[in-house]
């Protein structure tokens, strides 16, 4: 494959600046953006919380507004469109940290700027250094999936989860600075960050030289037009999407209009050879592992597994947690380690095993994302029709707001589903192979060693794809 090209076709440096259109720039520089989107989602999530609150523990999940919107519509949109195309655009409009941020700023719309800085309400403490990574998010996301059997069928469980997230985000906003909750704690932030490195969209500096000359970096410290980056990035310098919450504050604060929103080829950030870490490697593997567990549990033919996940018995539930955690934290990482060890042996290069492990883990991201998209197709196509019901009767009080409360369960395009899943997985594999080959060249200095070293990783990716294909369409 051609060096410097994605799939040998598109130059990795290719960019199309969306903010070159004046109306796009105006929109993103307006303080209504993303506030208007957030306020809409605040309304939507209020209804979701109410539906969860009144739904109780035993209402059927597919007739609950909260469950359907969150776990069917939102989750599927997140995995199929928002993350792969728009990066962390969900974080742009996420209503969950809204209250916390409002309290910090004590402003909803305008910018608080006094004595040359943006003052924040709260204790403004620093998050502990040992937790300034993805480990906590890895554990919290995994722990959240222990209860996935409840969230998808018991409205009250969804209420408790969302309410806990909101409460925690408010508490952390009052204690810690900026978007500490989003950066280090939010269970869905970590995978969005990692998978956003594959996304087709980015916020980046246009001309780094302008920033180098610039004396007062409003994008970091804030000014009267906007807040310093709430995601604790240095917007003039960051090179990966991982922690960019796409709040567009840097577009507002930049005096030179030197920040841009670009379209770009997929996966280029996965090749940024800096800040890679074991926390992100584990995130990649955990996401792949959970996709497999979810499919086996929720769409597999093993009723016992469903009973375990649903806590039909305590021992069964503990077994599920034990197996689920072991698979994601030990078994899958250990299998990957074997392949990585093979890669290092094959390359015959004295590169630390940890570095090889961490580097190659990023090659699993496209395949992991594809597995989630395939899983999502298996959720939305058979179950999407329930959305029409819950839109008309969000609280299950017998309403029929839009005349669709009695719309029957109608699977859509389920005959095509296996083919769509195969296609999705194969596209994911293709990108993973492309990334793996390039990472091999980054990791092993000699080109021949890189080729030799890539083979075991390609073996892992191929075997995983075959396993997923067998699971999905067996």
């Amino acid at each position, binding site marked *: 494959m051609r060096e410097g090209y994605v799939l040998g076709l598109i130059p990795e440096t290719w960019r199309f600046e969306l903010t070159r259109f004046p109306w796009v720039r105006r929109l993103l520089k307006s303080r209504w953006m993303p506030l208007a989107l957030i306020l809409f989602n605040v309304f939507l999530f209020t209804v979701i919380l109410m539906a969860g609150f009144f739904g109780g523990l035993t209402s*059927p999940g597919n007739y609950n507004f909260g469950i359907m919107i969150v776990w069917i519509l939102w989750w599927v949109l997140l995995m199929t469109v928002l993350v792969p195309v728009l990066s962390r655009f969900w974080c742009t409009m996420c209503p969950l940290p809204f209250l916390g941020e409002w309290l910090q700023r004590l402003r909803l719309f305008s910018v608080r700027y006094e004595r040359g800085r943006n003052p924040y309400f709260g204790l403004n403490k620093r998050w502990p250094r040992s937790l300034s990574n993805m480990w906590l998010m890895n554990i919290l996301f995994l722990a959240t999936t222990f209860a996935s059997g409840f969230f998808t069928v018991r409205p009250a469980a969804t209420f408790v989860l969302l309410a806990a997230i909101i*409460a925690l985000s408010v508490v952390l906003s009052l204690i810690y600075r900026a978007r500490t909750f989003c950066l280090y704690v939010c269970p869905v932030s970590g995978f969005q960050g990692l998978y956003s490195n594959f996304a087709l969209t980015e916020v980046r500096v246009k001309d780094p030289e302008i920033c180098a000359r610039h004396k007062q970096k409003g994008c970091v410290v804030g000014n009267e037009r906007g807040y310093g980056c709430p995601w604790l990035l240095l917007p003039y310098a960051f090179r990966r999407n991982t922690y960019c919450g796409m709040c567009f504050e840097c577009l507002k604060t930049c005096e030179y209009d030197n920040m841009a929103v670009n379209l770009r080829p997929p996966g280029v950030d996965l090749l940024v050879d800096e800040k890679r870490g074991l926390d992100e490697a584990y995130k990649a593997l955990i996401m792949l592992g959970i996709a497999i567990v979810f499919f086996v549990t929720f769409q597999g*033919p*093993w009723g016992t597994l469903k009973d375990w996940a649903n806590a039909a018995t305590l021992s069964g539930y503990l077994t599920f947690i034990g197996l689920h955690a072991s698979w994601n934290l030990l078994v899958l990482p250990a299998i990957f380690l074997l392949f990585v060890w093979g890669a290092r042996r094959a390359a015959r290069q004295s590169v630390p095993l940890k570095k090889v492990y961490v580097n190659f883990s990023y090659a699993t991201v496209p395949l992991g994302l594809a597995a989630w998209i395939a899983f999502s197709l298996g959720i939305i196509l058979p179950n999407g029709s329930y959305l029409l019901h819950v839109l008309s009767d969000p609280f299950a009080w017998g309403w029929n707001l839009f005349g669709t409360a009695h719309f029957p369960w109608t699977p859509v395009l389920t005959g095509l589903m296996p083919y769509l899943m195969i296609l999705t997985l194969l596209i994911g594999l293709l990108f993973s192979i492309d990334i793996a080959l390039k990472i091999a060249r980054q990791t092993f200095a000699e080109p021949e060693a890189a080729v030799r070293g890539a083979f075991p990783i390609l073996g892992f990716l191929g075997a995983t794809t075959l396993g997923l294909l067998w699971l999905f369409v067996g």
Partner: protein
Amino acid sequence: MRRTIIIVGLIGLVVSLFLVGSYYALFRYRTFPPAADQPMETLDVPYLERSVELSERGAEDPIWQRVPSKTLPLAPQVTAIPWGRASVPEVTVAAFHNGERIFFRLQWRDPTEDHQLGRDVFSDACAVMLPLVEHPQPNTIMMGFLEGANIWAWKAARDAQVWGGDSARVQSERPYADYYYPFEPREVFPITNEPIPSAVEDLVARGVGTLTPRAHQRVQGRGFWKKGMWTVILTRALAADGAADEAALPIGGTRAVAFAVWDGAKGDRGARKSITGWVRLRVWPAEAPAGASGR
């Protein structure tokens, strides 16, 4: 100091609200959707003072002309793997009762008659599913909770054994579970071949992976393949045997019912099937309102 007090107070308020809200959500509220999963289609089961025999003549009996039928779209089963493959697009269903027995007739197009079993050879089949409770809780996504269902499963291979169609061949193709000599292509000592009482298995299931034959097999049936069309009759006594795992079919009542069809030639077996949504089954009493029965 004042600021710290305000912050601590706010944190306390938020945590309290969360705890109280969670308590009420978990333990105080429970709402069922009143309009959940109401079947759109109704299959009327009129009372007719007749029976049909389980024969080709019975399948084509003119009485079926007097019974309202419904053609129901079939969708591939995609709740649990292996998924269906949209192999059969629709099934036409009709039913009547005579006060003692209920008769169902299922018809669907199938260009091949598959009544054999073997390695990668699968039988055509159909099934009628009746929930065990009068108002079943709707299915729920992902976890596949069901109230439990009584399933009448007709299989062409079974039919051939019971009714004698190409029986010798079916016998030899039939897989066994007693002993298998690994170097033989098939079982050579068919010593545990139990007699099969009916072409229809009377089954019960309570969720994925729990399909079990009932202790009392009370459903009879027979199928005929002619000119690319299966016609299958299934019948059972209306009065239930009182066991908790048999669906009741009270006269004058309505029940939910669903149907499934397998095309063996296209690899359908087990969960790989085509299914209908829920249909409302209305069993009319003898004195049915005018126009309720017949076309």
